């Protein structure tokens, strides 16, 4: 058990390193480098750079070095906590992304909780009442939820709230709390704005999980041990929750590994439509303005946190299921 956890953690460190490589590739991809963007910015501002100055800048940013050397230089700076400077916001990247990342992940985690809270009971109901009207209705709603793009759902909810109730539900804070320091009132205000993004982001995954839950539980319900337990006179409800449901929860726990990245993904576009101050809209803007360091840092941290989330779910699975624990320990 301890070995397995250790192994996963080493593997996670390796993955995190891979993340930095991918991020670096993404930085290098856009046509032109960030220096030429920077220079054209300066020129727009009326500042002319001489050739020597440009050469000095190239030297400073290491653009005259081969690609791998540039990577190590950048990597070294990241390790020291220097994420670079955002030209667009004119602030160090480190100061910009903290709060946004925190909000992004709070919303993702809340959406995950919402997803499980909805999917598990419905999945159990659908399996126990297979082919009932309720089962069909839930399946149908689930399919709709799976098929509707996140941003469409957000737009429709916005439209309904606007036309029916005259409420504008965009943003995460009311006007007076934007940019204000954190306080109790601000937190309550945020709680009022949270349901729409959480419902929108959570819906996509919910449908898939209902199907997984329903499918595995149906398999379990037909197994011998259920019949044995029943023949011994165990009450139906107790029987259901004591054995099959617990087994059927396993795939749900392992689904955390893919659910989390997809919640972050879905959150990106939803946040753009709803105007949430999370990482998604900032990433989009940084890409369009070629604000390279900001792009790289956002992409990197979103992925890093996802990799950590995935590792946690892997370890959790082993903790919960003794069968997997034995199997992993043996290998």
């Amino acid at each position, binding site marked *: 058990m301890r070995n397995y956890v250790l192994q996963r953690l080493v593997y996670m460190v390796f*993955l995190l390193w*891979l*993340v930095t490589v*991918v991020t670096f590739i*993404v930085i290098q*991809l*856009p*046509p032109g480098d960030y220096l030429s963007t920077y220079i054209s910015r300066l020129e727009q501002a009326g500042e002319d750079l001489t050739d020597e100055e440009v050469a000095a800048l190239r030297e400073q940013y290491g653009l005259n070095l081969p690609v791998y050397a540039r990577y190590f230089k950048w990597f070294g700076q990241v390790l020291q906590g220097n994420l670079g400077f955002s030209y667009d916001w004119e602030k160090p990247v480190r100061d910009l992304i903290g709060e946004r990342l925190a909000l992004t992940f709070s919303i993702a985690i809340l959406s995950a909780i919402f997803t499980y809270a909805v999917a598990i009971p419905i999945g159990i109901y659908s399996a*126990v*009442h*297979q082919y009932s009207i309720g089962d069909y209705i839930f399946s149908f709603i689930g*399919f*709709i939820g*799976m*098929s*509707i*793009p*996140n*941003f*469409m759902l957000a*737009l*429709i909810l*916005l*439209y309904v709230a*606007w*036309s029916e109730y005259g409420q*504008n539900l*965009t943003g995460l804070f009311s006007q007076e709390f934007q940019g204000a320091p954190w306080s109790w009132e601000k937190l309550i205000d945020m709680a009022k704005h949270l349901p729409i993004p959480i419902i929108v982001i959570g819906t996509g995954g919910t449908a898939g999980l209902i199907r997984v839950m329903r499918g595995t539980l149906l398999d379990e*319900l*037909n197994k011998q041990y*259920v019949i044995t337990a*029943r023949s011994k006179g165990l009450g*139906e409800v107790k*029987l*259901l929750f004591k054995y099959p449901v617990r087994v059927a929860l396993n795939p749900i726990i392992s689904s955390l*590994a*893919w659910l989390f*990245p*997809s919640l*972050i*993904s*879905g959150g*990106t*576009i939803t946040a*753009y*439509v709803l105007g949430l101050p999370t990482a*998604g809209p900032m*990433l*989009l803007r940084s*890409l*369009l303005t070629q604000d390279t360091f900001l*792009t790289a840092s*956002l*992409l990197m941290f*979103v*992925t890093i946190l*996802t*990799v950590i989330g*995935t590792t946690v779910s892997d370890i959790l699975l082993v903790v919960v299921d003794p069968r997997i624990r034995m199997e992993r320990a043996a290998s």
Partner: protein
Amino acid sequence: MLRRISSRRKAAKAQAPAFDESYYLASQWQLIWRKFRRHRLAIGSLLVIIALYSMALFSEFYAINDYQKRHVSFAKAPPHTIYFVDEAGDFSLRPFIYQMKQTLDMDTLQRNYSEVRDTKYPIRFFVRGEPYKILGLIDSDIHLMGVEAPGVFFPFGTDDLGRDVFSRTMHAARISLSIGFLGVIISFVLGCLFGGISGYFGGVVDLVIQRLIEFLISIPSIPLIIALAAALPPEWSSTQVYFGITIVLATVGWTTLARAVRGKLLELREADFVMAARISNMGDMDIIIKHLLPSFASFLIVVLSLSVPGMILAETALSFLQIGIRPPAVSWGVLLQDAQNIRSLSQSPWLLIPGLFVIVTVLAFNFLGDGLRDAADPYKQ
């Protein structure tokens, strides 16, 4: 309550018809077709998908107006209401519309539209209109629907510039639907390549490729796709962007396919019928062609049909964020750009209609994939 279910199941089994001889003589594909045919939802979805793709292929025929033409005096016009009963209370089987008149509200500077009820414009089918070429080859000027000049017909209303949303939606189907297909084919090739290599060689190669796939799956796909799509040069033409986006979607999307391919290959390699064939001295090539490919092909069709929706949704999202398909080329996502903020939504909610087509398409592919999955293994009861 559990007991009820199991007894119901037994009853269903007992009612199953005794299989006639044709069941035992039918080929695998005949069995698949038999089983698929029973899945009504999947059959319906297949018909919807065929209809949608025919809409994409013959969009000029379905379109009422030229999709780029600006009807200046009808900017932001709501959809025409289709009537069967006129002012006098007379019923006519042929639907008709009234023309709209624009008035400008001088206080809010908003355009308002009201119907002019004095002339009826019957909707005619297979009318002559703007000339076009069927599939770019055959000259034609026949359109599915239309009204007589000087009338105009906008079943889905118009956008800010007075362009017909219905015709634009028909036209946009072309890019939206083909990108899903093309993207899936490319990621399928990549998936088969890596999945095949992984499953065939095993050992270290397998381990490395599997870890690579795991890593790629753990990256949130939309931020990665956005980053890659934003790297497409701004000076690219619409066609180049189209292929660029397709390739971006495929590079991010091949991993799940590769996993599925590898898993199925490993499973099939160990299957009893392969063992039986080998024992009866069948050649490797024969085993692959006669046994592995058919069972693999049915599995592939299922995986492919379930992968198309993801591609379509991703393209829609990218274009909606203005980093996908670029105007003047139109896809459903491009059309939805007009409905981005609450102001334009509250003024012209009909701009969301192209989104309904996305939902219907994705829904149909999901149902179809579900039905195919049940049918793909016809020997399983």
